[in-house]
């Protein structure tokens, strides 16, 4: 081959070597490039390990971490674009076990080998499930999910607390549903992180913070749907205990119908959707107004009924009084007539029929002859009729 330049065809790029006598010499850059090109052809694989030295900064385009074996000192540097890392929404922290999908790559500048990451999954879903089940049994045994613990919700809360993630949808849905159903509702919203290793403690703190505000009579804990892992903070023991210890009733509206994070079991009521949560925490405004009007109508009807009943009773009494009066009068008249009869029976007229007569002078009934004087005129009354007479002789 003429000339002094050698070329290795590595399929992807050309690496040039310089010839010194019978020696082919590569520059460092060419060596690295050659190595990088060769390594790039290795297959993409899953690697299991523990995350350490996680380095993520807003101004960096790349996130770095060291992936190491749990039971040996073996480790490898790993990197992935920050956008991809954030899009995974894993909220990873040092010490977490993961499966990393990626391939080996050499950084041509330094000749360092690293694992170029395409995707990351938290490792050990089965382990999570088992731990969750154990926790559930433990908390149930303590009676934290018992039906007797459930408190009834206020019919008309002065303020509704809302603890929600900064994923806007759940927050927006609850606020919209509550205010649509009850426009005068007063809501107090606390946003927290709802994902990742710090979420549970933050949500618990938010719950306490909202409950401590004056007038908050009920709290809705809301989060939209998500993966099993997304909802894990809502099964965290700290949060479950915070829900149980919350001084006001808690409505849990976390995930979808089929999800049952432990906070659902600890909450006083579980709502499957934000709309359902709204229906639980505030009354229907129009219905409330109508109910109030109905009650007022009942109030008027009730008091009128009492007055009507009293009036009727009064009328009945008056009627009896009038009837009673007439009866009394009649009875008196009869008695009077009886008395008159008896009176008549006792009168002197009865005596006259036996042949007696009554003599009357100007000074009344004559009872003794001495009361008369000769020549005086007297009237004599008989049983039937009478006559006048002159006194001829007085015989005292």
């Amino acid at each position, binding site marked *: 081959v003429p000339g002094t330049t050698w070329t290795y065809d590595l399929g992807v790029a050309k690496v040039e070597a310089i010839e010194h006598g019978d020696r082919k010499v590569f520059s460092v850059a060419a060596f690295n490039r050659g190595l990088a090109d060769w390594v790039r052809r290795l297959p993409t694989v899953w690697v299991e390990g523990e995350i350490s030295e996680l380095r993520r900064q807003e101004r960096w385009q790349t996130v770095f971490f060291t992936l190491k074996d749990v039971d040996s000192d073996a480790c490898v540097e790993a990197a992935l674009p920050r956008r991809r890392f954030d899009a995974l929404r894993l909220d990873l922290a040092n010490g977490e076990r993961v499966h990393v999908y990626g391939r080996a790559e050499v950084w041509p500048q330094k000749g360092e080998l690293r694992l170029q990451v395409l995707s990351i999954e938290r490792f050990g879903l089965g382990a999570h499930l088992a731990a969750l089940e154990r926790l559930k049994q433990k908390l149930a045994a303590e009676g934290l999910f018992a039906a007797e613990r459930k408190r009834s919700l206020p019919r008309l809360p002065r303020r509704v607390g809302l603890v929600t993630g900064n994923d806007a949808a759940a927050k927006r849905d609850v606020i919209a549903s509550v*205010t649509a159903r009850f*426009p005068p509702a*007063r809501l107090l919203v606390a946003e*927290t992180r709802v994902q990742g290793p710090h979420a549970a403690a933050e949500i618990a703190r*938010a719950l306490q913070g909202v409950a401590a505000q004056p007038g908050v009579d009920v709290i809705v804990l809301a989060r939209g749907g998500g993966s099993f892992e997304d909802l894990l903070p809502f099964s965290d023991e700290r949060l479950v205990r915070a829900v149980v210890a919350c001084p006001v009733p808690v409505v849990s509206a976390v995930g979808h119908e089929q999800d049952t994070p432990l906070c659902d079991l600890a909450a006083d009521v579980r709502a499957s959707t934000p709309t359902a949560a709204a229906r639980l925490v505030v009354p229907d405004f129009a219905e409330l107004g109508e109910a109030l009007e109905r*009650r007022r109508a009942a109030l008027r009807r009730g*008091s009128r009924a*009492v007055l009507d009943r009293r009036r009727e009773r009064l009328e009945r009494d008056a009627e009896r009084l009038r009837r009673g009066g007439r009866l009394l009068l009649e009875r008196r008249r009869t008695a009077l007539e009886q008395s008159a009869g008896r009176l008549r029976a006792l009168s002197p007229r009865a005596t006259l029929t036996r042949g007696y007569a009554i003599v009357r002078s100007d000074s009344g009934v004559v009872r003794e002859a001495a009361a008369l004087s000769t020549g005086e005129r007297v009237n004599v009354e008989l049983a039937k009729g009478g006559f006048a007479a002159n006194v001829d002789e007085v015989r005292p």
Partner: protein
Amino acid sequence: MTEERLTFEQAEDELRKIVERLESGDVGIDEAIALWEHGEALYVICRERLDSAEGKVEELAERVQAAKPSA
């Protein structure tokens, strides 16, 4: 009266009890009138509470949020 301090719920509850008492019929006239007047006063309280209430959405001032990764 202490009625200004009643919550809507308490006033409405009281109103319901008055209606029930009246509907039981076991009430004298003077009492019925007194109950009615009291009931009307409670109604006014409830109505005013409903009509004057204004909706409000506040954010809890103290953000319970640590530095969070931006997506």
